[in-house]
């Protein structure tokens, strides 16, 4: 029981990992292999921001999210769009290259040591008990709540705002959108900015939950994000939460059986979904 609740809450963290990846794929058909590394970059930026400006740890996102959003817009309008203009394969290779560059850059400048984002508040480090069996860390509850708020916010933006409507239109048919006067490159940039904003939150959240190292991006965040997206259904926003929860619960149950089986159990579910229901548990497009 405890494992299931822990798993569900961890699913919130995985949904944060996954929703940006899903958005980039749903709108631009970009599989961003640098997704996880960018989350690590965001985490490192957060550590830097906290150290230099002494903002309260929990509020560091107010700086990191806009910074990452701007980076997202610029990367999309330059490197990623340039690759998209060539082919889907080029895009995959370019994001892979970006991933390698970032990872090695982080190793070079920040060493292989891992860093955590220290949250000194008792609220964050403590947990509360339900009965004698169930122990729930406040931090996981907070991250889960953030994930739900992010997904609600994205859904609201996509369904109600002018740019949200343009993002959906461009995802459907970018030529038709051009004929209506929309510059799809700019709209792609906005979508990338949103995705990178969620990447920033993912990096900060993971830095609080565990430790960030230069390789965390590819060996943990990207893989878990992929698993959550595939389990939940490609391009579906709420599917990433469902996928994250399924992944989280599978991992926690695996850990109950044997602590070393935690990660393996998650990937077995991922594989099972790929084989049995390749379209994912939900198969909606990115939309309201």
């Amino acid at each position, binding site marked *: 029981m405890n494992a299931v609740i822990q798993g569900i809450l961890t699913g919130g963290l995985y949904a944060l990992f996954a929703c940006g990846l899903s958005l980039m794929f749903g709108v631009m058909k970009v599989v961003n292999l640098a997704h996880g590394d960018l989350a690590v970059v965001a985490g490192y930026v957060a550590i830097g921001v906290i150290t230099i400006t002494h903002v309260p740890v929990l509020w560091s996102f107010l700086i990191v999210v806009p910074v990452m959003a701007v980076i997202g817009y610029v990367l999309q309008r330059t490197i990623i769009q340039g690759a998209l203009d060539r082919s889907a394969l080029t895009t995959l290779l370019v994001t892979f290259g970006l991933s390698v560059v970032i990872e090695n850059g982080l190793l070079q400048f920040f060493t292989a040591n891992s860093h955590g984002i220290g949250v000194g508040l008792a609220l964050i480090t403590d947990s509360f008990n339900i009965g004698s069996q169930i122990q729930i860390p406040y931090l996981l509850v907070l991250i889960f709540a953030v994930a739900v708020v992010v997904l609600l916010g994205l859904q609201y933006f996509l369904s109600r705002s002018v740019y949200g*409507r*343009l993002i959906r*239109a461009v*995802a459907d048919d970018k*030529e*038709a959108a*051009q*004929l209506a*006067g*929309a510059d799809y490159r700019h709209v792609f940039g906005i979508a990338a900015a949103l995705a990178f904003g969620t990447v920033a939150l993912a990096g900060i959240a993971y830095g609080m939950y565990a430790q960030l190292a230069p390789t965390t991006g590819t060996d943990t965040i990207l893989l878990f994000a992929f698993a959550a997206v595939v389990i939940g259904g490609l391009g579906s926003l709420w599917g990433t939460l469902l996928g994250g929860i399924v992944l989280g619960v599978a991992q926690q149950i695996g850990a109950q059986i044997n602590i070393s089986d935690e990660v393996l159990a998650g990937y077995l579910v991922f594989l099972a979904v790929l084989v049995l229901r390749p379209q994912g548990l939900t198969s909606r497009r990115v939309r309201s």
Partner: protein
Amino acid sequence: MTANGDRTNGGTPLLEVRDLVVHHGQLRALELISFGVFPGEVYAIIGANGAGKSTLLRTIAGLHQPTSGSVLFDGQDVTGLRPERRARQGIAMVPEGRRLFGSLSVQENLQVGATYARPGPWTIERVYETFDWMRARRNQRTAQLSGGEQQTVAIGRALLTNPRVLLLDELSLGLAPVIVQRIYGMLPQLLQTGLTVLLVEQDVSQALRVASHIHCLLEGRTTLEGRPADVTAGQVEAAYFGLAGAAATPQPDEGE
């Protein structure tokens, strides 16, 4: 239809194409096409499948880059402009196959059209007044509409940019003749708002009925140009099928 005043009085064309050559990969799709569309005209490009009609329209809208030649709009060279820039300057296109945004509702499709609108007579309210069935079904997905209804939404979306020239690509494609009649029947109403129309149509009789000027393409070349009243059915047939060039068919020396 509107008179040919500007054409005969030596006015300037609103839209002009000069020596346009367009390639589809290795294939030469258009070969030195030139013509002008004058304000208030309904200019119809006719021709068989593969004559290059849609390519011509797409090049004017900016979706294709020509190999050489130029597109002028209101006297300005727009050949290098991206499609979205041309749309914001007043060139709107209803693309072949309608190309509505499938995951958006009817109203959202219209709203996208209105996002970068020029100032002008068309508002979503006015579209609902013109096509009265649309208001009640504004929250439906476009996939739930019939082909004719989808075509009407596509026209509404294009009108909402408040264009000066409206490009219509094969409106009749895949639609029942009755529906095609009804859609073309709306043209006079649109022209009253000061619109100029350039359309591509495979259905020649339909084109001859609505057009003030026709231009026939055959394998990327101009074979006939003129007012419907000034050309004979035989000329049109010859220009459309290229019979004048086919030696096997005994045909008087009409057309090109």
